[in-house]
């Protein structure tokens, strides 16, 4: 019996991780829970929330599976369950109080999970929780303003409020959600948090928790109908308020991409790439047309799958090698082929290359931007998405190609099955969505668009992505590419001649010399360094917000020290103070005429 207890615990944990799926499949109708006064919590499953619940339903079991490996860690399991509970409350909530409750449960349980990592520093943990709580309190402030305008906490259009109130709600809620998606310069918690969190939990942070910020941002069009256009009119072919948001997203994407390129740590790179990817989402949401929002939703889905895949894969690599920096790994392709393919698929998705669905999402966003005639934003998006190729290449080159740069990397073996299964599932999902973009549009994106009062995009067939600007067929694309690949390979094999594998990794064309083992042949660490010579990139990489945060912390602590000093005196001082107050107040009152 005692020997079975860990197994039972794990099974229980895995079962609980399936609850989002269960909720998604079975929840119907509304459930009301009274609080106090006229306030009550309303739980119902809206199509928008259902989409995010779908992400949760996909992600939770896939992360739970590798988490359940090894000796059961009961606190981690319990906190993970709480986290899932919080996120489900958040998504099911039909009113802002429920949303906030879920939001906060998610925040603190994720924090407690984060500090279970042995790598979490005080700075990282504090940054994580303070940014997230600041976000939560901004949300609370926003919803209190909302309440003061409407007398109600129900999530509904804010129609009868004054302009000042509308802007206050927009700015407060917007800021709250922007902190969560990690928009610059409010992003500092993301690289620290994603880097220091337990490796598997980073997948949850990047794949699922950050998406709740996107959910919040998608609520804004619900509050301000007509895609924010009611707030401040229109600019060119889109809403003016959205234009601001879109630029915030684009600049975030650009800066974060360059920051990602310059990282030496895999998880930090992935963190910055998350910021950049969600920057695209923000840009698309700013456009607010059905094409762009459809792209944003698809991008959210793809980013979730990709980041789950990449973080789980790299968690496996870190588990097997103990190394997490680019120059400490290398040449794992022979030893960890599944991980190699996972990362390959992951970076193709991340870079938005055809035929994976990342391209479909980008295509929609690009077309949306052209449709809105916001071409400068298009250029900005293009800049960050091509620059993303460089960090994508680092992700695959650093760990998998080149030369093994540490003893661990030299004798690593493939990660355990519990890591491989999620990788394979996620790879399969990505490829499927890539072949059938029309299916993704029809089944996943269109219901959300309809719920947001936008025209559905529709798809003539499962394989086809169609827009007024033309489209493409995923099945044909995949068929053509696949056949070409097979035919070229076949021709190559059929032709006369033989292939010979190089005798040693040092058998290279090396400027006439023969390299030896002690030569630094792995280019992983230095890659992208030369980018600093480009003036714009050099300027971006030379500036950080660390100083501002540190300065703020220092000032607060100095104030705290000053005030704390008041509390260390002797009783005489306290009494003197009381008497002084006694003497001064009536004097003041008398001076004022004593008519109080």
């Amino acid at each position, binding site marked *: 019996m005692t020997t079975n207890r860990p197994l039972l615990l794990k099974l229980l944990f895995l079962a609980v991780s399936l609850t989002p799926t269960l909720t998604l499949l079975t929840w119907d109708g509304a459930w009301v829970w*009274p*609080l*106090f*006064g006229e*306030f009550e919590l309303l739980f119902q499953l809206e199509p928008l929330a259902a989409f995010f619940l779908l992400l949760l339903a996909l992600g939770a079991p896939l992360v739970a599976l590798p988490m359940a490996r090894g000796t059961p860690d009961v*606190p981690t399991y319990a906190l993970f369950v709480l986290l899932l509970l919080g996120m489900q409350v958040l998504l099911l909530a039909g009113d802002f*109080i429920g949303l*906030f*409750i879920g939001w*906060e*449960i998610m*925040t*603190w349980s994720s*924090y*407690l999970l984060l*500090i*279970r990592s*042995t790598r*979490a520093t*005080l700075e990282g*943990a*504090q940054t994580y*929780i*303070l940014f997230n*709580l*600041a976000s939560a*309190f901004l949300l*609370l*402030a926003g919803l*209190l*303003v909302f*309440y*003061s305008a409407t*007398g109600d906490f129900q999530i509904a259009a804010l129609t009868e409020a004054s302009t000042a109130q509308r802007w206050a709600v927009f700015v407060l809620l917007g800021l709250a959600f922007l902190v969560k998606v990690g928009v610059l310069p409010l992003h500092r918690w993301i690289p620290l948090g994603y880097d220091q969190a337990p490796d598997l939990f980073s997948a949850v942070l990047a794949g699922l928790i950050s998406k709740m910020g996107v959910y919040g941002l998608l609520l804004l069009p619900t509050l301000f109908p007509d895609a924010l256009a009611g707030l401040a009119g229109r600019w060119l072919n889109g809403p003016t308020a959205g234009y601001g948001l879109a630029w915030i997203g684009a600049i975030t994407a650009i800066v974060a991409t360059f920051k990602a390129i310059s990282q030496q740590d895999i998880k930090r790179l992935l963190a910055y790439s998350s910021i950049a990817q969600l920057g695209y989402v923000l840009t698309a949401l700013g456009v607010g047309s059905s094409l762009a929002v459809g792209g944003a939703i698809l991008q959210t889905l793809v980013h979730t799958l990709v980041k789950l895949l990449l973080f789980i894969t790299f968690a496996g690599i870190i588990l097997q090698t103990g190394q997490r920096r680019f120059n400490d790994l290398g040449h794992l392709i022979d030893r960890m082929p599944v991980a190699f393919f996972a990362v390959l698929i992951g970076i193709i998705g991340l870079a938005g290359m055809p035929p994976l669905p990342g391209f479909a999402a980008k295509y929609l966003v690009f077309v949306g931007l052209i449709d809105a005639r916001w071409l400068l934003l298009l250029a900005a998006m293009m800049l960050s998405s091509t620059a993303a190729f460089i960090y994508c290449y680092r992700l695959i080159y650093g760990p998998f190609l080149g030369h093994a740069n540490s003893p661990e990397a030299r004798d690593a073996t493939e990660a355990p099955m519990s890591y491989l299964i999620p990788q394979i599932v996620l790879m399969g999902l990505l490829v499927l969505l890539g072949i059938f973009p029309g299916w993704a549009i029809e089944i996943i994106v269109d219901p959300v668009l309809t719920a947001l009062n936008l025209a559905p995009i529709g798809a003539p067939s499962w394989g086809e992505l169609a827009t007024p600007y033309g489209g493409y067929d995923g099945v044909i694309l995949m068929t053509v590419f696949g056949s070409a690949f097979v035919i070229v390979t076949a021709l190559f094999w059929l032709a006369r001649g033989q292939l010979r594998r190089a005798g040693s990794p040092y058998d290279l064309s090396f400027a006439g010399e023969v390299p030896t083992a002690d030569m630094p042949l792995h280019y992983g660490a230095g890659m992208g360094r030369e980018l600093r010579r480009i003036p714009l990139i050099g300027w971006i990489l030379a500036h950080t917000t660390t100083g501002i945060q540190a300065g703020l912390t220092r000032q*607060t*602590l100095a*104030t*705290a*020290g000053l*005030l*704390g000093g*008041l*509390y260390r*005196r002797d*009783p005489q*001082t*306290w*009494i003197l*103070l*009381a008497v002084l*107050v*006694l003497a001064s*107040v*009536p004097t003041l*009152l*008398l001076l004022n005429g*004593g*008519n*109080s």
Partner: protein
Amino acid sequence: MEFSASPIWFIALPMLAAFSSPLWVRWRVLDQLLLGIPLGLLLLALGLFATVQQAPLIETIVIAPPLGIHLHLDSAALLLVALFCFAVTLVAAFLWHGATETHLRGRQPFVLILLLLAGGNGLVLTGDLFNLYVFLEIAGISAYVLTAVRDDRPALAAGLKYLIIGSVAGVFFLLAVVLIYLQTGQLNMAAVAQAFAEIPPAMQGLIAVLALIGLGIKSELFPFNFWVPDVYRGSDPAITALFSGLLVKAFLFVLVHLAVLIWIDPEIARIWLMTLGALTLMVAELAALRQDEMRRMLAYSSLGQIGLILLAFGFLHESTAAGAFFHLISHTLAKLLLFLVAALLLRRVLSLHLDALTGAGRVYPLTVGLFVVGALCILGLPPLSGFMSKLWILQGFAAAQTFWPIALILVAALIEAGYYFRWIRVLYAPAAASAVTDSKTSKTAPESWATYAPLLLLVGLMLLLGIAPFVIEGALVDAARALLDRDLLIQSVLGVAAQ
């Protein structure tokens, strides 16, 4: 009036029990009584809610007019009395099963804790200014001695400081009472309330300032609360739990009660109370940021919450006042939990200093886990009761379109998060400091479940009130109404409406 329904029991029973303690020592029932008496009173209080909702219970024992004992049990007072009885019950339960320290066992703490309860109950029940002073001194003196009960250097120093500053506060308050009596010839609060308007304005101001300073010192408001961290640090955590959970709340209630009752112009009272509350909140939260000793940190946090409660009360608005009552309850729950956790930790480690506790969470998972729950409740994070009470306060402000307190409360909460999460992070730091593992652990047997039972009960209550706040909604709204409705109070005592 039925025998069981008299408010006098809330004061008389603990006092009687305290004064006949030699008997209980002989019969060896000290622990049982320390638990049983407040528990009985708690049940009595719970039973009275329905009655009091109809009309306040009034008990007058005339000694020599205008002197006499006048007790006034309305919804607000009942809520607090129930809370105080609960707090003492809980601490008693904790001491009975857990306390190994000799100074917390036996006659002395028995007498003092019960006197503290009697004093606290008296403070909120009394309808007479002189009685108020008497109860203030009863509660005060028992608190001074309780502070010093451990009988070592820091405890004695803290007790002495407490004694000095407490006496000064008493003097200030007494002066105010004397002045009122000289000016109006009345000591009954309702009568004073009616007559106060006729006093010359300058004298009104002087009386108000005297009372404010006296009660301000006692209820730990900003410019008068410099003694608090020292006292909280010096006394035993289980006792501090009572100070933070019971005593301050009683004084705070008295302050707000008097302000509402006596001050005719609510605008001025509002400005004074809210300013004091806001100042206390911000200063205390900021000062707490750099505290490296758990009890001092909790003391500052307690000050901050008191400021928040006063801010909400001071708005003199039914909705925020109900929220303030709620917050008062959830703060008591959380601070009881936190101080009792500190007491538990102190049994195993030598110091509650931040450095000494590094990594304690990995050695004592349950204890530190409870600390986390308490901290989350104080921070107002759902699903704990602290969230609901803060939400109630905040929505009250929002409904009244007053936004500066909301901003202030949220900023303060963020600062508070800054230090609580710093503690949590250090408690769960990867490497356990040698102080944690080496110190007393080897000597101390693991705590039994009975020790944790009161703490778990607190957690359960926090969860209950956080998820289902409607269970006490009626009591809170009634209490807020009773506190703020000046006319009703005067009418119920004197039978006439105020002018």
